[in-house]
Structure formats: C-alpha cells, structure tokens
C-alpha cells in the first residue's frame, strides 16, 4: 500500500523517549512498503525486553477512584494496551472503557512536555526541573503555613506523604474529586455511625432496587458490580434476579433493569421510606425495627404515591417483592441522582436495606471503599483562598476550575492565592490559572500504590521510560523538602521509590514477611498485596440513626422543566474529554459521540415541537447552554437532562470548545456536596439544527430477530428461541413448502461439502464466538478494547455524521415497546461484529480474493490486496465492514499518540476495506508459541480483545471444532441462535437469547 502510516516518528526522539528500539519495533506496522532506512539497536539490552515479544507489567488504574488492577502490554519498551489484572480482587481481569483509555492519557498530544513557569508576558515558558523546584521552594519558604493543597489522588502512600508534607508545613489539604459520593458517606455516618462506604454484592442479591444509582456504568466499582450483576441477573444460575430502576432518567443501569419507574425528581427518599414502612408493618418488626416503626409510620405508600407519581399498588408490590426476596439489595447515591436531598435518599435506602436484613448480606461494610472527601472538604479551603490566607496553592490530580460550577467562583478565589502550582499532566482549566506547572508522570511511568479498599494494596510501577520531561509528584515533594529543609527536613527519602519501599517494608512486617525482596517482587508480579477485607463490623443503628427525614424537593428557578445532569458514561467528570477513544466511542444510552445533547421526552418534544438535532437553549437562573435535542423515552416528561464532561475551555485540542458544560446551569453549592439536580430551566428553540453524530440508524428491530429474547420460564424449561415463540402463541413463521425446505437443506449440505473440498476439514480449528445477551449490559468496554487492540482510527465528528465510524464491534441498542402510551420501553443490546460466516456473502463478490475464507474458518481480509470496490460491504448482511474513505491513518494518531499502535496489526491505508478479524494477530501469535513449545493449541490460548475486556464475561471465544471448548458447549446452548440465520450464512457467532422477566412478576 502506498501511503505511510503516521510517520515512523523521528527516530531520535523515540530513542531518547523510549530508551530502546529495534527495527520492527519502530516500524509501526503500517500499510507501507516504504523503507525504514535505519536500524537502531539497544545500547544496553534490558533482560525483560525481547524485540517482537510483548512484556507484561502489572499496575493500577487511576482513571477513577475505584482502583482496578492493570496488566500493561508493552512492546519494545512502550505500552501498547491496558487490560485488567485477573488476580486483582476489584476487577478480576476486566477493565472499563475509561480505564483502557488511560493509554491515551499517557500518549496524549495535550500533555505538558516539561515544567513551565508563567513569564512576565503571561505566557508559559519551559524551565528546568531544578529551576522549578527552586522556585517552588522559594515560594514555600516565606509562605509558612499559608499553603493550600487540593489533591484528587486516591488513598495510598502518596496521599499519606502529601498529607504529612502539608501538615509539616502547617498548610491546608483537601482531597477533592467531583464524584465523591459524599451523600453515601454522610448517610452511613448518620444511620449506622460508620464513616465509610460499603461494598455491594450484586451477585448474591435476589432482587435489586436502584434509586437512580448507575451502578453498572458510572457508579463506584462498576466493573465489580457488572460482574456480580451478570451472576445474579444473567441467567448464569438458571435464574434471574429482578432489577427495578426508580429514577426520573433511565441511564445504562436503567436500560438493564427489568422495570423502570419514572418517578418525580427528588422523591426517591419518600418511596424508600414507604417501602421500609410497608416491610415493617407487614412483616412485623423485631428488635431495633420496633424503634424504627414510629419513625417510619409517617411515610405511607399513599404519601409516597403522592410524591413519586407512582400508583400505590406499584409501591406495595415493590415492597412485597423486595421483602420476599432474601437477600435483596437497594442502592442509592451517584451523580445521576444527586439532588439537594441526596443524603436523605441514601439514609432512607440504608433504612430500607436494614429493615430488609440486607446489611452484612449484600451490603458489606468494612470494605471501606476509597472516595475523596469531596466538596465539603473543599469549602473551608476555598474560604481561606477567598480570604487571601493562602500564599501558595498546589493542585494535584484535580481540576476544580472545571468540575465546579462557575457560580462557585472558584477561579476568582483561586486567583487570590499568591502563587499557584499545578502538577497536572495537561494544561487543564485549573493549571491554566497557575503560575508554575510541574507536570507529573503518568501512572504508567511512576512508582506508586493505592489502597482503594480495605485489604487491597495495589502497586504501580513504571512500565516504560517517561514520554516527556515530567516528574513523579512524590519525588517532587521529596526534592522540594530537601531544597527547603526546615519544617520539611524530616522528608529525607532519597527518592519516592525508596519512600514507597520503606512503607512496604512496614506492610511486609505486619504480614510477617521476612524476605522483603521476594515479597516486593511477588507483589509487583501480582500487582499488589490482596488480603480478605476485615470481617464486617457489627452494624447497628446509630443512636439517632432512625430519625430519617424526607424534605420535599425544591428546585431553584421557575422554568417548566427540572434540569438534570449526570456523569457521562465515558467522559466521567470531564477527565475523559481529551481522549479520542472516549469521544468516538458512543454513549451507551443515546449512542451519540463527540458532542453534548439534551434529552427530551417524546411528549415534551411534541409539546415543544422539536425533533432530534434541533438546538435548544436551556436557561436557568444561573446561565444558559445550547445543545441539540435527543428525543428519549427514558426520561421523565418534566425533566430535561444534559450529560457532564464536555464544554472544556482548556484541556487540549480534543476537548477544548467541544460541546457545552452542563454545570453552567447550576448555582453555587451550599451544602457538603454539589447537587447536580437543583435547578429548573426554561427551554426555547434557537432555530438552529445539528445532525447528531450518532452511530444509531434505526433503533427498532422491525421483528427481524436480531436481538432475540425469551421469557424466564421458557428459558428455565430449556426451550429454543423458536419454541419459545411458539409457546407464546405466535404462529410458525415458515414460508417455505416441504419441497423447498428439502431443496434448501440439500443446497446447504452441498455447500458444506464444497467447503470441505476447500480443505476445511476438522483437523483445522474453526474459530467461533458465543455472546450471551442475558449478560451483556451494553457498557461498550469491548468496543474500546477493539479500538486499542486493532489500531482502529478515530474518524471524528463530521465523519461519524456521515455514518463512517470504524467500530469493528458495535453495540446495537434496540428499543422494545414504548410505542403506544403506557407501554414500558426497554432496551435490547446486541454486540455486532463480523460473524465470520462459512458461506460469507462478502467473499465471492471480491474480484481480487481480498475477502476470502481461511482454512481455520476465519473470514479473512487481506488489506494489501484490497482495491476498494466495496462490494463486500454492500453484500454483508450484518453491515460490519468499514471503509477507509480518507487517509484516516494519517490523522487519527497525532504524535505521540501513534506510540500506542499495536505493532502486530497492520495500520490500514485509505481506500481499503477493514473489519473484525477475530484478533487474528492473537491467534497467529498463540499458534507460533504453541509451535515453539511443540504442543497443540488449548482452549483459552486465544482470547480476543473484546472477550478479554467484557466485565460481565458475556463474550466467549474459542475453537468450535474442539467439543471440549467452552465456546463449543455454548454453541449447543438451547438459548443459542444466529442472527439472520435464514440467509444460510452459517455464521461463527452464536448469540444466547436475553432472558426476560414477565412484565408483572
């Protein structure tokens, strides 16, 4: 192919940056025959790097506070993929999109190249580290205790060091993060007197009620939750725990619920308390329950019905079902339901769980999940800033200038600090306000550890040379201490690594480990030290724990609609907005990429006479934003919602000026947390229109049986999809006569014979896949994994507008029901990728054999043979072939982003068709290894990127010809079906039908 992939970098930098390199390594495998003119050997050969062979390091994810374990795949000294660490108790080998995109944080073009200081002219100019540290020390000296530090760093050695450091200075420290679950913590304090956040065991729950908590996607420990949810709700134990979602808006968790009740915003507490009340009255109270009885008696179902807008019967039924299932689980909290009364909701839910006897069963205290202190802790510091009591302000791993609403006046207050320092890796909104930028190492470049929960000590290690001239903030603190001496003289560790190891010496001691070196290396290999969480403390009601309240929600302003904003599935609090993977990967609910949107209920849309894409102006007492409409059935008619995370004013070329910042509509937070649902807005049409950059075509299946589903009892009876249909009384859908059927049968047999003639005999593997729709939650971790593994270019907003996204695997989200009023709408997800058909319609039409069938049953695509007639794409009934309309390979990976490219996968040039290859590079790699070890391939030798990432383990890959393999067994599953089977494509992917609970069960 003629075009170079993104140039093979200027090689000198590669050396200096990566310290190592070798021919094939730098030659990022691109579709090019252009010569690499130089071969540059290692100066010193490191033992654990063999060119052409991947080296794996374990580390810890820092993209959110959950603290999942990582396995980092490195090639020739550069990280090329992030995967979950199977030994890590939190995520057990799985990783969400945000975590995987950490790689693009590492290679982000927006990263600061080195320390910078604001010059006289107000511009930043590069300085040396010595100079930088000197400047910082110089300012800290006179500042004395007038020092304020905002840190978003998770609980761990660094945080401890930082707080000691600040304490030594006598300064103020606030651990601040946007989504800190303050209400949960507060409620736990209030009800149980426990200042911690419990872990939730969704796996054991028989009945799940979520009061607006997006526990599968943006909530705490979503991977862990998805894993548990798949067990309880995924028909894995041949049963399905019912999940009810109670919130004004249906987020990804809501789409996975068996029932969604659109209650009025802010009324969750009333409902929870009424349920608790019903449980008590109907089940008779025992022990402490009796105490509660009085407190709860006020909360009648009728009152709740009044508040929520739900019929009394529904509430009663909810309560009964919830009580009947042991154990059950009710969850609350999260940005999506964070209104002024959020703490009351969490408290009420605590009571509900307590009454239902779930505490200690599915609600596990003692795990003590790590969250930052949040806005409450930030307030005094802001006050101090405002009062001008701060001379030196340091911001670390936090971006309050963006994550706090303008009305909070953070910028103004922050400006009052004499000297402002940021350790951010990027020039974000906060660091743009600073005088000194001391960019820290990315998590993959530094030594560190995290304690995301009790019993989990998770290590980070540098997996490669730093990409830029950055410094671990730990080292920065220590070197500054050295430079300053005085109060900081105590910090005398020679480097942060030594400090860390010293701390781990202590850990080793507590664990009676004698040989520290062995302990340390073992920990590094496993990714940390994992012990069982301390036994759950005896949880009982706090003295005043029973005194729960429900205050009617009040929303600022007098607009007709309540304005709701929520954590973006991929961009989170906005930290994802500089990573093309997260921008290009569609929001799992709306399937919109790259820009903001306003969710409006169809009825409301009809009233306002607006359609998808019409730009609305939302105006609250505090400001107004404009965004295109997305008409969404999953939202309360009185609510309009806009996701957080976009509308950056800084934060690199990808984020800057993209979309709108929903926070602009919020008022200055009064309480201990930031209420995301607190204002009313008026809505007006701007008359402008923007075609949504959505990857959704038609969201209805039109009865084509693409995402099949069957009722629970049908599934329990072991019926096939067709039998289930017949059982439901549908007529047999068969248009062929007996003779025709015979003919068709004979024909397909003839074709099977033909494929045998093409030496497809059993002695070859036949690669295949099984996807369990009962488990798939539509989280799209697989999509990001595919982008990362297969060098898929991101094409950008305009191209996606033309339907030209390159998602080799996409999650199709089909709406069911919701057509006539009153009928509930539900979503069916189906991951759609190349089906690797045996009778692939795409193959025979290719004039040059670029699409053909490999002996091991893959639907091969030879990029360098492809001339680009696109006939295969036309003829593919699954529409999973993607074409390089432009030279995407030259724009998708601006330096240094191209360092993330997987050297094992060809980068496709323009004019070439591409598609899912079942990660053939992994298959061939495994075959090579097996051959070197003189053995045959074993089941599990090959795991595709999507299967590896899937948090709920819905995707299984393997050899269908090997009857022992897991996938072969799943291919025999009674729920199994093939999409568009009537076309006799004999696809290699078997889908397992989703299992539905009867509407009223």
């Amino acid at each position, binding site marked *: *192919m003629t075009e170079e*992939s993104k140039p093979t970098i200027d090689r000198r930098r590669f*050396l200096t940056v990566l310290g190592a390199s*070798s*021919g*094939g*390594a730098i*030659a*990022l*495998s*691109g*579709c*090019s*025959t252009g*010569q*690499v*003119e*130089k*071969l*540059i*050997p*290692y*100066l*010193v*050969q490191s033992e654990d790097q*063999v*060119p*052409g*062979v991947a080296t794996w390091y374990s580390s810890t994810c820092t993209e959110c506070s959950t603290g999942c374990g990582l396995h980092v795949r490195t090639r020739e000294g550069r990280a090329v993929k992030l995967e979950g660490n199977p030994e890590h108790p939190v995520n057990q080998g799985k990783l969400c999109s945000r975590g995987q995109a950490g790689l693009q944080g590492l290679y982000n073009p927006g990263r600061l190249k080195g320390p910078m200081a604001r010059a006289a002219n107000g511009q930043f100019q590069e300085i040396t580290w010595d100079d930088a540290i000197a400047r910082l020390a110089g300012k800290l000296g006179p500042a004395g205790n007038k020092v304020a530090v905002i840190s978003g760093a998770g609980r761990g050695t660094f945080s401890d060091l930082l707080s000691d450091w600040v304490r030594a200075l006598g300064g103020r420290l606030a651990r601040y993060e946007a989504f800190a679950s303050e209400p949960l913590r507060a409620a736990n304090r209030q009800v149980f007197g426990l200042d911690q956040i419990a872990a939730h065991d969704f796996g054991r729950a028989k009945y799940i009620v979520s009061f607006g908590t997006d526990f599968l996607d943006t909530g705490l420990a979503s991977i862990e939750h998805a894993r548990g949810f798949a067990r309880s709700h995924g028909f894995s134990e041949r049963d399905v725990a019912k999940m009810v979602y109670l919130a004004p808006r249906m987020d990804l968790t809501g789409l996975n619920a068996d029932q969604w009740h659109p209650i009025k915003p802010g009324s969750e507490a009333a409902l929870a308390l009424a349920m608790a009340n019903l449980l008590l009255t109907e089940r008779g109270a025992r022990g402490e329950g009796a105490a509660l009885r009085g407190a709860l008696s006020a909360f009648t179902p009728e009152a709740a019905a009044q508040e929520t807008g739900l019929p009394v019967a529904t509430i009663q039924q909810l309560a009964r079902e919830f009580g009947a299932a042991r154990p059950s689980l009710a969850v609350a909290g999260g940005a999506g339901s964070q209104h002024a009364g959020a703490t009351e909701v969490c408290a009420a839910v605590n009571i509900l769980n307590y009454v239902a006897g779930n505490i200690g069963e599915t609600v596990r205290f003692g795990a003590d999940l790590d969250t930052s202190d949040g806005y409450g802790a930030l307030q005094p510091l802001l006050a101090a800033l405002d009062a001008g009591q701060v001379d030196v302000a340091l911001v670390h791993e936090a971006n309050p200038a963006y994550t706090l609403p303008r009305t909070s006046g953070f910028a103004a207050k922050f400006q009052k600090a004499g000297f402002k320092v940021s350790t951010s890796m990027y020039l974000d909104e906060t660091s743009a306000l600073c005088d000194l930028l001391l960019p820290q190492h990315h998590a993959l470049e530094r030594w560190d550890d995290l304690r995301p929960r009790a019993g989990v000590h998770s290590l980070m290690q540098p997996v490669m040379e730093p990409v830029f001239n950055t410094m671990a903030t730990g080292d920065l603190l220590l070197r500054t201490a050295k430079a300053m001496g005085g109060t900081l003289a105590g910090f005398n560790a020679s480097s942060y690594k030594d400090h860390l190891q010293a701390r781990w010496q202590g850990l080793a001691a507590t664990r009676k480990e004698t040989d520290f070196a062995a302990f340390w290396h073992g920990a590094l290999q496993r990714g940390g030290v994992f012990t069982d969480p301390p036994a759950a403390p005896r949880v009982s009601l706090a003295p005043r724990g029973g005194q729960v309240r429900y205050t009617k929600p009040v929303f600022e302003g007098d607009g007709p609609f309540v304005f709701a904003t929520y954590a973006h599935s991929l961009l989170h609090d906005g930290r994802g907005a500089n990573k093309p993977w997260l921008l290009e990967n569609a929001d799992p609910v709306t399937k919109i990429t790259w820009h903001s949107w306003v969710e409006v209920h169809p009825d409301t849309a009809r009233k306002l006479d607006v359609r998808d894409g019409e730009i609305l102006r939302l105006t609250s007492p505090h400001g107004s934003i404009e965004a295109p409409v997305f008409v969404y059935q999953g939202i309360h008619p009185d609510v309009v919602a806009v996701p957080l995370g976009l509308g950056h004013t800084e934060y690199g070329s990808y984020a800057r000026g993209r979309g709108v910042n929903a926070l602009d509509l919020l008022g200055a937070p009064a309480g201990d947390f930031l209420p995301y649902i607190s204002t009313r807005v008026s809505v007006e049409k701007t008359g402008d229109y923007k075609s949504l950059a959505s990857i959704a075509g038609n969201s209805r299946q039109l009865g084509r049986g693409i995402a099949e589903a069957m009722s629970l009892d049908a599934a329990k009876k072991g019926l096939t999809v067709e039998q289930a249909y017949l059982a439901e009384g549908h007529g047999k859908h068969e248009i062929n006569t007996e003779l025709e059927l015979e003919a068709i049968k004979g024909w397909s047999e003839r074709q099977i014979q033909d494929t045998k003639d093409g030496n497809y005999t059993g002695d070859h593997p036949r690669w295949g896949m099984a996807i369990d729709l009962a488990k798939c939650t539509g989280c799209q971790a697989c999509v990001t994994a595919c982008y990362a593994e297969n060098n898929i270019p991101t094409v950008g907003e305009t191209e996606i507008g033309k339907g030209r996204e390159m998602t080799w695997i996409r999650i199709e989200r089909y709406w069911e029901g919701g057509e006539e009023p009153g009928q509930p709408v539900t979503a069916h997800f189906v991951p759609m990728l190349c089906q690797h058909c045996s009778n692939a319609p795409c193959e025979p039409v290719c004039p040059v*054999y670029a699409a*053909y069938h*490999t*002996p091991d049953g*893959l639907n*091969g695509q*030879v*990029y*360098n*043979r492809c001339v680009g007639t696109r006939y295969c794409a036309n003829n593919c009934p699954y529409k999973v072939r993607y074409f390089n309309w432009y030279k995407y390979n030259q724009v998708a990976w601006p330096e240094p982003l191209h360092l993330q490219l997987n050297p*094992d*996968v*060809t*980068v496709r040039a323009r004019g070439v068709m591409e598609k899912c*290859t079942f990660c*053939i*590079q992994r298959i*061939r790699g495994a075959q*090579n290894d097996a*051959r*070197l070890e003189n053995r045959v391939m074993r089941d599990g030798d090959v795991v595709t990127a999507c299967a590896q990432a899937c948090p709920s383990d819905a995707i299984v890959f393997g050899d269908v010809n090997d009857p022992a393999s897991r996938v072969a067994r799943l291919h025999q599953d009674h729920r199994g079906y093939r999409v568009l089977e009537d076309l006799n494509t004999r696809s290699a992917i078997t889908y397992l039908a989703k299992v539905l609970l009867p509407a009223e069960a």
Partner: protein
Amino acid sequence: MRKLAYVVGGVAAGGVAALLTLGGHPPYAQQANTVADSIVAPVLSASDTGSLKGPRQPIFFRHDIHAGQYKIQCQYCHYSVAVSSEPGIPSVQTCMGCHLVIGGSDSSHQTEIKKLRQAWNEKKPVEWVRVHYLARHAHFPHQRHIKALGPTACATCHGDVQRMPQVFKVNKVDNMGFCITCHIERKVSRDCSVCHY
C-alpha cells in the same frame, strides 16, 4: 511445469506479455547447509567498502570475519531470532562484550573498533543501514522459520552472509514471489492470513 502453466495462463489471459512469467520466478537462493569450514576473510579497509556490494555501514562490520572466519553463530548476536518474530539487532553492549578486550589485528580493524568504543562511551547506539526490509503489511515470524528449517537456515533468505565483507541483499525478500516460491516448493501453507493481517 509451472512455467508451462504460466504460458498457458498467459495465453488464456489474452496473452498479456508472457515475458512477465520470467519475472514470475524470483531468484531463489539454495540453503547453504555447508557451514563454511574454512573461510579466510580477505584483508580490507573501510576505504574498500565502496567497491563492495550492499550499503555502506557507519561501522565497517565484517560478517565474513565474525560469522565466517571465527564461526560465531548467527544467534550469538541476533539473539531473539529463535524466539521472536524479530531477529534482534545486537546491542552495543553485546559488541563491547568482546571488543572491550579485542582491539583488532590490523590498523583498518582497529579504526572500526574505535568507532564502536566511541559509540559505547558516548552512549550513542550505532545507526546501522537497513539491508533487508519487509513490507509492514507482511508478518514474518523468524522463530517459526528457524524452528522449521534449523538454526543454519538464515542463508535461505539472507544468502551466504559468512562470505560477505559487507552485507548486501541476495534475494528479493521483500517480494511476495520469493516467499511463495519457497512455500510452494516446501508444500507449506499458502493461506494469505498466515502473513497478512
């Protein structure tokens, strides 16, 4: 046979310049199983490199001396060839392993070795000029070929390096025809996706 077949094909194809069929047969080097028992490398100095085939290298490294005369195994320097798809370019450290001690017999050798030591001291790796290059859309797992053809199989593609004062390209290893001819003659897989993915 194949030639004949080709002529048939050529005619059938409308007789498109059947001469192309000659081009259809890439030169195919016989595997040099006969390990050079007694090669005495000629005495050359860097100034002679101009007359030699192949690109001129920053250091006039003599494969004929190392691999030929002193019979150092290929894998001693190209350490990863048997375990990886990449043959591995020896690190400067590897060179220094010997050349800390060995300073070279005559002046021409000494000048070259000096360059090496200089590179080592300045921590600047030597930038060798690439001789064999494979298009990036073709994957060639060296380890599989060493496994199948044995450790002396290098010559199959790279020619008799043991006799090369300066390495040059013997075979069109970057032409698919070269690979395919061998795969056909050895009756091994011709499946596209073995190399192209």
